[in-house]
Each structure stands twice: as C-alpha cells, then as structure tokens.
C-alpha cells in the first residue's frame, strides 16, 4: 500500500491526517490487513455458504409510520451554531455574480 492510498482513504472518510499520522497508519494498516488476508487465504471457501441467513436476519426494517419523537428544542440543544431556530452551515450554492 502506498501513502497516497492512505490519504485517499482519509479523504473518503473525511478525516484530516498529518503526514506523521499517515506514515504511521500506513505501516499499521498493512500489518492488520495483511494478517486478515493471510487468515482468509487459509479458508476453504467451498465449505462457506452464501450468507443469506445473516443478511436476512439482521437487515430488518421497521414499519414506516412517522411519529414525532422529539421536540425542536431537544434536537437543537447540542447545536452551537444556530440562528432563528436553524443550524448554520457554510453556503453550499454559489451566488450568481
């Protein structure tokens, strides 16, 4: 794995890394991912079933019946950047000049 790959993963995951952190994670990721791949190479995948049981069992969706769970005040109480009851974020759309 190259350092560029770590930086791409960090960008995809929205995590700012220093150069020093990127170097350190590169070594650790190679070791951990390498160990996982070596273990999996030892498995005879012919004995491994399709995995549908867990996908079906654990991907359960609750009925879509909207209800009001929390009031606006509770939902906003942890927000530090707000104005007139709305959360402030940087402008997403550029104005026409």
């Amino acid at each position: 794995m190259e350092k560029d790959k770590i930086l791409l993963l960090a960008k995809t995951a929205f995590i700012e890394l220093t150069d020093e952190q990127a170097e350190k994670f590169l070594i650790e990721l190679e070791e951990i991912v390498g160990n996982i791949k070596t273990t999996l190479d030892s498995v005879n995948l012919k004995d491994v079933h399709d995995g549908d049981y867990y996908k079906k069992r654990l991907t359960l969706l609750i009925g879509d019946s909207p209800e009001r769970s929390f009031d606006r005040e509770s939902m906003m109480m942890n927000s530090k950047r707000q104005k007139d009851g709305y959360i402030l974020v940087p402008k997403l759309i550029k104005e026409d000049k």
Partner: protein
Amino acid sequence: MRVSDIISKYRAKEETPITLLDGIYEKIEKDDLNDYISLTKNIAYEEAYHSKIRHEKGMPLSDIDGVFFSIKDNIAVENIRMTCGSKILSDFISPYSATVVERIRAKGGIIVGKTNMDEFAMGSSNESSYFGPVKNPVDTSFVPGGSSGGSAASVAASHACISIGSDTGGSVRQPSSFCGVVGFKPTYGEVSRYGLTAFSSSLDTMGIISETVRDSKRVFDIIRGEDAHDSTLSSKKAGKRDYKRVGYLDAIPQADKPVEEIYGKRIEDLKKDFELVKIKMDFIDISISTYQIQTMCETSSNLARFDGIKYGLQSKSGKNLREIYSAVRGDGFGSEVKRRILIGTYFLTHNEGEYYSLSFRLRDYIANEIDKIFENIDAIVIPTSLTLPFKFNEKTSSPLQMHLSDSLTAFSNLANVPAISINGGYSNNLPCGIQLVGKRFDDDSLLEFAERAETIWRENG
C-alpha cells in the same frame, strides 16, 4: 456489593439508599480509579430519596428498588452527558434515555454515573479513552480490560452493584474477566439496543456486569423483551432445560500458562456433575478476521454521523462542509477509531466491498460450525481471555496484538449465541475468567448452568 445484601440492609433498617449512596460517592473519590466519566449525583439522590420512602412504606417497586447501577458512557441517559469516551462527543448531552435505562429506573434502580470506556467501544484495555485510562481495582498497575473497563472496575470496586455495558466482540466479558466479576452477553435480539451508540450494529449487544450470576439474571429479566424502537428484537425463546453435556477444549495453544492451568482445574471441577466432552473449535482465527472486517466496515459507516455540524465537537471552521467535517473528525477521533474507520473504508471500497460480503458468508460458516457443536452438547466452557490482565502500555504499540484480545469472545457475537464470563480463580493475585457459551436464545438455561458452575467453583476454592 450484592443485590441481596443491599435489600437485606434496607429491610433490617440498617441502611437507606441515601446513606449507601453517600458511601459510594465517597469511595469513588477515595479510590481514584477513573472508572466514571460523569457522576449523576443530582438524579441519583432524587431517586434514592424516593426509593427510601418506598422501602419505609414496605412498598418497593421491585427487587432492584434502591440498587445502584453504573451505565457505560455509550448508553443514553436523558439530560446527562454521553461522551462515548471521545473528544468528539465530550460535551454532548443526550436528549433521551435508552430503553434499558428507562426499564431500570421504572423498577427503582438508581443511576450512580456514566462509566469510562475505550473510545466508541474500540479497545481491550480502556487505554483509548479520551478521558484517560481506568485502573484495575484488583491491582492498579494493571489495565481493567475493555471496552467496558470502567463498568467492570465500578462493580469490582463496589462503586455500583450492577453495570450495563455493551459487548460487540467481548467488551463486557473480557473486562469482567480482568476485574474478577461476572459479565453476561445475551443473545443478539434479547435486549433492546435503543439508546446504545452504534459501533457495529449487527454485533452490538447490551450486556450486564455484576458480582454474581444471580444478580445478572435479576437484571436481565427486567431489561429484556420487546421494544418498538429496535426492529431486531426477537420473541423467540428456547424452553428451559438442565444442562448435562458440556464441551471443552483439550488445549488452547495461544493461551498463557496460568490461564491454561486455571481452566484445566475448573474443567476437572465440573466432571463430578456434568459429562465433559472434548470439542474442536478450528474457526477461532477465522472468527477474528471476520470480526475485524465486519466491525471496521460497519464502524466506518456508523461513525459518519459525527461531523461537527449538529452536535458534538463544533470548534472547527472551514470554507465548505468537507473542510469542516475533515477538521472536526481529524481532531475529535483518537488513533484507534481513525485506524478502524480507515481500514473499514478500505474494505468497503476495495473490489466493490467483496470483503464485507465475504464476512457475511464467513459468519454463516462460523454459526453453522457452532450449531454443529451444539448438536451433541448443551454448553461450551472455554477461557474468556488468552491472557491475565496486563500492564499499562504493554500492548498499545501493537494494534494487531490488541485486536487479538478478542480471540475467544468474538465468535459468540458472530454466531449470535449467549455467553457469560465467571471468575475462575487467581494466579499471582490476578483474576482469570472462564466463559460459558450456550445455544442461541438459550439464555435462561445458560444462566441456570452458570449459577451451578459458579457454586461448584466457589466450593472448590
């Protein structure tokens, strides 16, 4: 601190919930274990006052009325800070309570505080917490295990009677082993996860830490059962039955010698009452790799919600949202969390997520292997951890070695079976947990068996 002892004191009018609570808070301060991130004195004293009145009238709400609970800091308690052991949530106030917390309070349980933990439940030593490591009350130069290290320490140090933790790959059982207490992980689908901050949603389970199996049983009966907020709960129940045949491993190659010795002695102790059957568990190595892939992929998705916009760390600014997200997450997450998110992102993006898909197939494989073992036996008995408690900083330089701490516990999360760790004895004054694993949804029978094993081991010294 056992539930029955506390209730006896209330009945004999020797103590009240308020006097005991005074003693607990004094002891927490004096012991200085760093097992709590937040103490909830205001609500605890209010609850203790009401409990005192009920006991005086002879009308307690339940047999946990006036019993003291600690709650892991990734479980929500309304209007109380919930940090998940992370800088990114260090000032977050929860707007609601988890179902387990509501059920405990409805029965008169008193919440003493929120316990320290590995950041977002990722770790096996409690050294990844933003709020500093927890000291093991058995010997403060050793780690308490993790990720529910503060919870296990709080029970072992009598800073609470019961703690509610979370167990994704051993996070309740391994620290219970390290602190010499009981740690129970029920079958996935028995206890509502509503209010538990998701780490790896398909594996996360609420768990109970207590001094005795009986106390875990008591609390399990209160917190289990249907909840409209958690669609993965199941009404499936196995009939109660007596366990007769118990499976054990002849050798555990990677285990430390003291662990093997204690395990061997405890197996011998069981031979008088049970038929012991040698079994093989060749899937241990595969289970760790499967566990790593599943948890890291799911965590990279689950933790995407922490972006510094609506709540949590909001100190960073930027030209656009991407800059704010990246700065907040870069500053707010610790090394272990970043490492797992990056590996999860790698697995999810590599060859269209082939590793994540494979991990589900491997989960089926592991579950099928476990089911085959259970065709001939009622329970599996194995050590909880390959090692005894270790010293601070002993494993922090090798994340890979730290991840292997879950070797003997992760398979029960992957196969979705219940498991409980009981203290099996001591070596050089350090505790060693022995784990009992049951069939899926066989939680009641497993707890009965665990209570018998606990009695046998206690009688044999």
